[in-house]
């Protein structure tokens, strides 16, 4: 029997999937599949990891549980504002701090690099957040930070960005197109 190609998450829940698939109803299988992938990306592990763990390992196994997971990402998005990241990095475009939505990473762009940057700080202004947020929260923020440069799938992003919307201001109307078109923020543009 052939199965519709889906995410592994779809097939990793045998108690739910067999009846549909055995019935050969493609639509039903697809539907469940969608539902189950949704479950996967919504999976919440609320307690995080105990404090004592180190983060020095390359390709940290925790990558998997924090990336491509919309709960962790949206918590990171919330913390990004709460911990004042946006004060320096804006909504990814930067300001007092460097932009986060471009493809340049001074200190590495892997999850564990970003986590280390957040927790330990970097020279010339990046403060140390260790002891201000938990390690789990740093991972959540890192997950969001990676989404700013479109390194997370569209389906895990928050549908409603918390940044301000960018409609045409009235004073520009009479100005015509002297300035380039206003963009929506971030990743969407990059993917189009």
């Amino acid at each position, binding site marked *: 029997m052939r199965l519709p190609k889906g995410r592994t998450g779809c097939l990793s829940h045998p108690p739910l999937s067999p009846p549909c698939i055995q019935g050969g109803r493609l639509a039903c299988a697809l539907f469940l599949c969608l539902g189950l992938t949704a479950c996967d990306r919504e999976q919440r592990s609320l307690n995080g990891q105990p404090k004592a763990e180190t983060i020095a390992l390359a390709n940290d196994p925790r990558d998997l549980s924090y990336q491509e997971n919309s709960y962790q990402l949206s918590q990171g998005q919330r913390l990004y504002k709460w911990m004042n990241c946006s*004060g320096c990095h804006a909504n990814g475009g930067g300001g007092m701090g460097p932009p986060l939505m471009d493809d340049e990473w001074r200190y590495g762009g892997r999850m564990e690099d970003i986590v280390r940057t957040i927790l330990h700080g970097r020279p010339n202004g990046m403060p140390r957040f260790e002891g201000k947020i938990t390690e789990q929260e740093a991972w959540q923020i890192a997950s969001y930070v990676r989404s700013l440069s479109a390194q997370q799938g569209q389906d895990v992003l928050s549908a409603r960005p918390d*940044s301000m*919307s960018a409609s045409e*201001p*009235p*004073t520009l109307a009479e100005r015509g197109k*002297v*300035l380039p078109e*206003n963009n929506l923020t971030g990743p969407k543009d990059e993917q189009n």
Partner: protein
Amino acid sequence: MAPLVAGGKVLVGNAGGEFGVRGWLAALDAGSGRLAWKAYNTGPDKDVLIGQAFRPFYPMDRGKDLGIHSWPPEQWKIGGGTVWGWISFDPASNTIFYGTGNPGPWNHEQRPGDNKWTAGVFARNVSTGEAKWFYQTSPHDLYDHDDINEQILLDMPVAGRMRLVLIRPGRNGYLYVLDRQTGQVLSADPFGYINSSRGVNLRSGRLIPVKEKEPQAGRVVRNICPTASGAKDWNPSAFSPRTGLIYIPHINLCMDLGVLEANYVVGTPYLGAESKVYAGPGGYRGVLTAWDPVARKPAWEVHEDLPLWSGALATAGDLVFYGTMDGWFKAVDARSGKLRWRAKVDSGIISQPVAYRGADGREYVAVISGVGGWAGALVSAQLDPRDNSAALGFVNAVRDLPNKTKSGGRLFVFALDG
């Protein structure tokens, strides 16, 4: 800020109004370097050096410990009011005048009250630091209107009478003429486009805000003019005694502003705002206004496409020098505003030109190039213009800048007689 040496003291203040600091101005003894006095701009009267000699002109600035009572509890400790701009010294009265920065955070909902002594101007005895008067240009500031702009001390006729005045083109868009002995506002006229306030009530001294332009958490208020950077930011104006005009380099920008709750965490920004900046009515972003302080109106204006972020310099040869963000160093006629000369330098200019006579007897004009700062961070720090709110929205206003200049940093000296 650059320290000022006056009355035997070296005066220096702090910055960081976006980081939850408490603003102060300190005076060091010029001979020994020892701290002579330090005046905070928030908190109890004894910290602010407010004593018997303090005589503010308006009732709103009178009362005990207003630096505490005009704030929610604890908030004054992290309330800003920094001193990072210009100090003026009047030797005749042994008085210094300086402005205080914005209250923090930007989100005004977190700091109900007038937020003394931020966003206003202090007059102090330079020897003791004691406050003489204070005038708050933006009580309960809504838009990051630091009041650190320069003050120009003039003796000039006001309504037919000679007065000792202090003139300051403010962030909020009004050109204030204050009596520098009492702190009374003699006039406050808009020198740029303003829609966030209706004027200044000369009886109470208070700015009259426009309710619809008041930021509110969770929503975006559109088309607020002037912006957070003000109708004019820190870049100083010049006064020419020959023409009697004040040359004000400033900007013509408006913004959308959204405020959100700022969370105070030591060592991180304490801001609570997002904004997006764009050109104001007319489409140009920079203006050089020659203002006639006696007639209380502009004599002429020069429009610049990019925001005007350099200081102005007026010379005895009736020229006014200024630089643009795309790297033109210009000299215009001080009486008409006509362009007399210009030279292109390697990067945008956001510094203050100076003129001097060299040891060889020749006259020189010097300026440093190198775009940057709030307005030029897009180029100097390579920000990403796809985010409208980058550099607190300023990137959106200058997204064409990378096509017009690059980062730099050179001193250019021009000899006047070639």
